[in-house]
């Protein structure tokens, strides 16, 4: 992108060459190395979850069940959901980029509790071992939602080991969130006031609140499922006096906010990248920061919109519907502000920016289709159909994953000190966008037609749209391979990045790439607001 001919020098002392032994990695307390450990582990789980997705899409090419048995198919979508949500999306941006960047962005040498941070990774891995054990020993077939009494009294698969895995992984999430909040409160560099924080930090602060307040409820709920199943008790099973709706309430109390755990950090990434490639200060900093907090708080009070047709009370439905509409507003505010940030910018189109454009597009569609599901009378028709499948993939795959890839491209030079091949990466971004929409847009139509979720076989009139979707998935699959190729290539052949290849603002760009172990020679003193790509002199202040 730039015209500099002289390749920058690769720094002498970096966090990467500070010891090469396995022990220096597995016992590291450096937040950057822990971020890399997470990067490797979640990439593995992304590939595994993707493999399940591939098998699901292949099976759905035809209305009959011809590739696998119905119980195998049920395990496929269950494990796709569990792996992608708990072992990829929930940790993805926070555990990799949050770990790597939160301390650097606020001018700290590490997270507040480095040992706890390492312990969190081990908890994640321990949880992963239980989940993998469940997968290789025959799988689990309850759906990722573990609805009772199916999960506790009827399913004939490895529910307990999966539950234990999720419980342990949950603690990893809790301690990561706790670490971020304490770090952001207590470790900011001199001059780094709350309103000078990059929006990435605000997003992670909001995410962390959900992690520490929501995850324990999931923990105790999933533990009760395990206990009920293991000992044959009746906490949620109506056959023993239990209430299956209590399970749903407790489960969604975490699992709806969990969606915001996945999307809030993604929103943080967008604010960082869009300002850099538009060479502009963010439009409406205060509104974007506040909307992150509003989403985190309101997000705790909308869980009942998963239960409109569950036979919960009508009045509960009304309240949850109203609150669900309310939580849509802060998301809309963010989209408008990002769009306005582009106005009168000086825009370039490198891969991270292409992913951001893609994000804004699919997130807009994903957010708007959420309104259909928040509306009581409409949800009765589309609830638990492919409309819902399409909607949450627009948010989680289109939204969270595209932002994750934007972050990968944007901060890869910082993490490794190497440049990836820009042209190929741009092709990848376009393939992901096209493939994604081809895969999931037909599913909106399928859903409105009435195609239910979790169907191994379906009626023939749905086949055309399923073929479209599977065809799109193959484009998407290739799209995902391209960034992988770019990154691996860059490690061997990539040019040295230098401290600030994008000429970006933010403390992380003031230190060498890759950064030294302790980040800063001297703790920086912050004197200006974030995203000062333009001088105040040219300021046009609207009121």
């Amino acid at each position, binding site marked *: 992108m730039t015209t500099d001919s002289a390749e920058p020098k690769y720094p002498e002392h970096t966090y990467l060459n500070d010891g090469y032994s396995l022990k220096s990695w597995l016992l590291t307390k450096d937040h950057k190395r822990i971020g890399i450990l997470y990067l490797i582990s979640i990439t593995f789980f992304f590939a595994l979850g993707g493999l399940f997705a591939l098998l699901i899409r292949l099976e759905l090419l035809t209305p009959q069940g011809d590739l696998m048995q119905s119980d195998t198919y049920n395990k496929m979508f269950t494990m796709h959901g569990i792996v992608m949500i708990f072992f990829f999306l929930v940790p993805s941006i926070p555990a990799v980029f949050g770990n790597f960047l939160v301390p650097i962005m606020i001018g700290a040498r590490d997270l507040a509790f480095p040992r706890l941070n390492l312990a969190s990774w081990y908890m994640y891995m321990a949880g992963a071992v239980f989940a993998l054990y469940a997968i290789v020993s025959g799988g689990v077939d309850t759906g990722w939602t573990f609805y009772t009494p199916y999960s506790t009294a009827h399913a004939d698969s490895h529910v307990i080991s999966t539950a234990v895995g999720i419980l342990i992984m949950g603690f990893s999430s809790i301690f990561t969130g706790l670490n971020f909040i304490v770090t952001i409160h207590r470790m900011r560099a001199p001059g780094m006031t709350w309103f000078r924080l990059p929006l990435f930090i605000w997003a992670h602060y909001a995410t962390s609140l959900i992690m520490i307040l929501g995850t324990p409820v999931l923990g105790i709920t999933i533990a009760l499922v395990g206990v009920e199943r293991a000992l044959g008790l009746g906490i949620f099973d109506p056959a023993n006096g239990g209430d299956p709706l209590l399970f749903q309430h407790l489960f969604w109390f975490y699992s709806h906010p969990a969606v915001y755990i996945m999307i809030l950090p993604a929103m943080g990434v967008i604010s960082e990248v869009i300002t850099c490639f538009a060479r502009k200060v963010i439009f409406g900093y205060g509104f974007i920061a506040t909307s992150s907090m509003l989403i985190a708080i309101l997000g705790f009070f909308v869980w009942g919109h998963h239960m409109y047709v569950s*036979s919960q009370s009508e009045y509960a439905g009304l309240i949850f*519907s*109203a609150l669900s509409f309310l939580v849509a507003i802060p998301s809309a505010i963010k989209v408008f502000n990002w769009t306005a940030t582009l106005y009168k910018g000086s825009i370039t189109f490198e891969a991270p920016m292409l992913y951001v454009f893609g994000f804004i597009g699919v997130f807009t569609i994903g957010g708007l289709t959420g309104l259909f599901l928040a509306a009581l009378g409409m949800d*009765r028709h589309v609830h638990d159909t492919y409309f819902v499948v399409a909607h949450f993939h627009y948010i989680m795959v289109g939204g969270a994953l595209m932002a994750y890839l934007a972050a990968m491209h944007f901060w890869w030079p910082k993490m490794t000190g190497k440049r990836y091949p820009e042209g190929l990466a741009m092709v990848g971004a376009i393939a992901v966008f096209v493939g994604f929409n081809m895969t999931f847009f037909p599913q909106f139509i399928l859903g409105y037609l*009435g195609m239910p979720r979790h169907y191994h076989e379906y009626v023939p009139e749905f086949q055309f749209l399923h073929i479209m979707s599977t065809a799109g998935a193959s484009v998407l699959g290739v799209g995902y391979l391209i960034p992988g190729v770019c990154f691996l290539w860059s490690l061997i052949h990539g040019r040295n990045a230098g401290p600030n290849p994008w000429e970006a603002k933010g403390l992380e760009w003031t230190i060498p790439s890759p950064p030294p172990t302790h980040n800063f020679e001297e703790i920086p003193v912050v004197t200006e607001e974030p995203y000062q790509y333009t001088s105040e002199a040219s300021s046009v202040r609207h009121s």
Partner: protein
Amino acid sequence: MQGGLKFFPDQASTMAGPVDAFFFYLVGVSVFFTVLIFTLVAVFAVKYRRRPGNEQGAHIEGSKLLEITWTVIPLGLVAIMFFWGAKLYYDQERAPANALDVLVTGKKWMWKFQHSNGRREINTLHIPARTPIKLTMGSEDVIHNVFVPAFRVKQDVVPGRLTTVWFEATKTGSFHLFCNQYCGKDHSRMVGKVIVMEPNEFQAWLAGDTGLPPVASGELLFNQLACNSCHMGEGMLRGPSLAGLHGSRVALLGGGSVIADDDYIRESIVNPAAKIVDGYQPIMPTFKGLVTEEQLMHLVAYVKSLEAPSGAKAGAAETTSGATLAVDAATTAGQ
């Protein structure tokens, strides 16, 4: 109708039109904002691309006016969505009083239906057109869900309680009925169809093969289980009289009151302690485990049929005689 390439579902119930109208409003709002955002992003991206003379963006920190605009307008639009959606939901939740009752039992992995005259079907439900139908549903194992896309209705079928859903078909034909709540191995085969017939054809079909009607079967059980020893008779009874109970408001022991709907009656049979009628001793034993989910629905149907004393006695008498006639049929039909 089934088969063929489709991009929009059949409209075959009175609810389909209103739901689709709302759908088009939602699609309209969505398309407007999607096009708006896409256009703005595309125009800005082209117009303000970096080129000689445009090396740096303008310094614009924000605009309160714009922020207020794009907060208030969406708020207004979603407020409309909320009330519109709530109105539809309200209509979906309230079956007309004259609705035909059909009992539905979900079990892994089949649907069992029973009409008010006792006729049973499995996985296929015949109904008359232009007549409100109310499904009263119970589950024998896990959570299921009745979904008829052409009618735009859907409701969970939850073990341990009764749920209801209603619709009025407007078109004759055959329509899909899906189980829409994941229920295990053959979830995707828990599929049936709803066959909508002209009312006169339906009457002919209904008369074709009758078992014991739910009300009669309920009455039989009512007597077999000796419910009548406390809930029937003259003078002061040990249990509250059930005549005219359904739909009335019942004062409870320890204050409060409850409307006696299907689920209340069901609960009072399986868990009598939950809500005791004021003025009575809580002495009724539970019948949980003694009666199946289907028999529970029969008992509820019978209790519903009991009219207030001032009402027509003849109707009740007729039911009784019908029941005695059908006793043999019931025992041979068996459980």
